[in-house]
């Protein structure tokens, strides 16, 4: 086969390489250059301004506030999502066929993951609606009428109302991943633990968790990257505009979108993109480091 190898290798690789180079690699690398210009898009000349966009952004409180919100999400989303997903995964795996309807639950829990974030966002905009929304109606029903509010219009709740939706839609996904990982742990480990009189909690803490640590780390990085993006839900649920409450849920991606497509500050917008990239990479490295444990072969 060798003599004709390149007759297939080159034509088969070329379409993918060209598309990838033109529409993915080129824009990514170009962004670094654009981020060092004060380009406004109208003329062909792109005045080079060095790191000016970066220093201006880092001194701009609106951008730093947006970034800080990503930081808050970065802490809350992984902890809450992973905890709930782990709990459910443990219940199904350890409960096994003892849990009635486990197949049904699994199908239901995973479902939000396949639905467009736009639909999910719109649906919850109405769930949170102050006058006819489900949430307030439910709170009144169970006698917590004093807690009702305009969840997305209230500056103190808007970000967390949106975060709750993100958690709601992704728990099932991580649960399925964790279940696959838990099921790969040999049952003999648990048999031995039971003979030694280990409680369920001890079994979970000392066998399950360490043996599925790699999967938890992966999930952590996934969610962290999602927390640095977070564009669609915010855009759909608040319009990404400049009302007081929308401003309180503005994340870096929304800031960037507005810089680019409403202000035409293309250089500055690209700088935000580069900052997000650097943060994503740094975060992945840092998370890989601090979560490093001995990995167990089994």
């Amino acid at each position, binding site marked *: 086969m060798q003599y004709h190898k390149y007759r297939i290798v080159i034509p088969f690789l070329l379409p993918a390489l060209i*598309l990838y180079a033109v529409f*993915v690699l080129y824009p990514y690398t170009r962004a670094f250059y654009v981020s060092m210009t004060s380009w406004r898009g109208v003329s062909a000349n792109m005045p080079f301004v060095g790191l000016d966009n970066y220093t201006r952004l880092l001194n701009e409180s609106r951008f730093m506030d947006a970034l800080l919100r990503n930081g808050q999400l970065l802490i809350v989303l992984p902890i809450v999502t992973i905890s709930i997903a782990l709990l459910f995964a443990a219940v199904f795996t*350890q409960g096994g066929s003892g849990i009635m309807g486990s197949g049904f639950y699994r199908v239901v829990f995973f479902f939000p993951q396949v639905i467009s974030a*736009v*639909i999910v966002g719109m649906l919850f905009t109405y769930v949170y609606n102050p006058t006819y929304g489900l949430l307030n109606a439910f709170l009144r029903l169970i006698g917590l009428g004093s807690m009702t509010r305009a969840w997305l219009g209230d500056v103190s709740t808007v970000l967390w109302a949106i975060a709750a939706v993100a958690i709601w839609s992704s728990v*099932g996904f991580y649960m399925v991943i964790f279940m696959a990982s838990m099921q790969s742990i040999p049952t003999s480990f648990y048999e031995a633990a039971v003979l030694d009189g280990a409680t369920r909690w001890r079994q979970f803490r000392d066998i399950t968790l360490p043996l599925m640590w790699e999967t938890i780390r992966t999930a952590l990085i996934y*969610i962290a990257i999602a927390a640095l993006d977070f564009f669609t839900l915010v855009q759909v649920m608040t319009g990404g505009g400049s009302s007081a409450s929308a401003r309180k849920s503005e994340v870096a991606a929304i800031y960037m979108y507005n810089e680019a497509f409403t202000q035409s500050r293309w250089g500055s917008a690209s700088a935000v993109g580069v900052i*997000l990239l650097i943060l994503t990479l740094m975060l992945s490295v840092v998370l890989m480091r601090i979560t490093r444990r001995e990995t167990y072969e089994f």
Partner: protein
Amino acid sequence: MSTSLVPTPPIKESLETPSTPQLGDLDIAGQSHSKRILGIVAQIPLIIWAVMVIFPFLWMIMTSLKTNQEILFSPWSLPDTPQWVNFTNAWTEAHIGRYVFNSVIVIAMSLTGTLLVSSMAAYVLARFSFPGNRLLFYIFIAGLMFPVFLGLVPLYFLMNDLHLKDTYHGLALVYIAYSLPFTIFFLVGFFKTLPEEIAEASTVDGAGPYRTFFQIMLPMAKPGLIAMGIFNFLGHWNQYLLPLVLIQSESKRMLSQGLGMLAIQQGYQNDYGALFAAMTITMVPSLIIYVLFQRRLESGLTAGALKG
């Protein structure tokens, strides 16, 4: 595409999933009683979460069949008479029909393109050794690490310069390009698992490399192609950011984009019934695909996390 469906999977941390018996199926003496209690107690959070997932969707469907009056003043009650007219309003007056048509055209192109281009590249990367093979593989995989946001501004101007902005085929090309990293990653793994001998036998029989690929390897890779077809269909169907930036004429909007625009404009002329009908229409294809291919979809979606 790292915007909505898949979070970008990080590089290689291997984890194989051998088929061991289910832990819970095992009856270890002394645990069966406590297991029964656990099984009952565990139902409580499970039911709560299931209701939290199902109820909003049911409410959405129910609301899509109500009049504006009913939606605003009796959000909990069933519609008096189902307002099917909401669906026709959504389809024609809110232009959802038009958006569905647009999405179908773009996805027909982008899905065919993604599967064809990725399977060709993946086949070569998986089955042929040549200098730079691994490097190329990693360059493709690296695309999974980068936020789509990074390249958004240059992409917008590139599309403008190439006269691809605001066109169906332009958007389809971008969809293909951003789907390559994950699809190639998945299919390389898949092609590696296919037996070597059959391809060799066909070469011996005098089939050229192209015939070997299209008539022998591709049919054998069908399960992998189906998994990636479903996965990318959902990704492209649900994609929001790219059309938002790259499609500007109202008549060419994609479905998710058009729907999002309706939401931002505070509903179509305050016709909430039509808005909920539009959401329901957009959800239906995903629901059908999920019901039909649930297992395959799950394994496709989670493959990045488990193998990657």
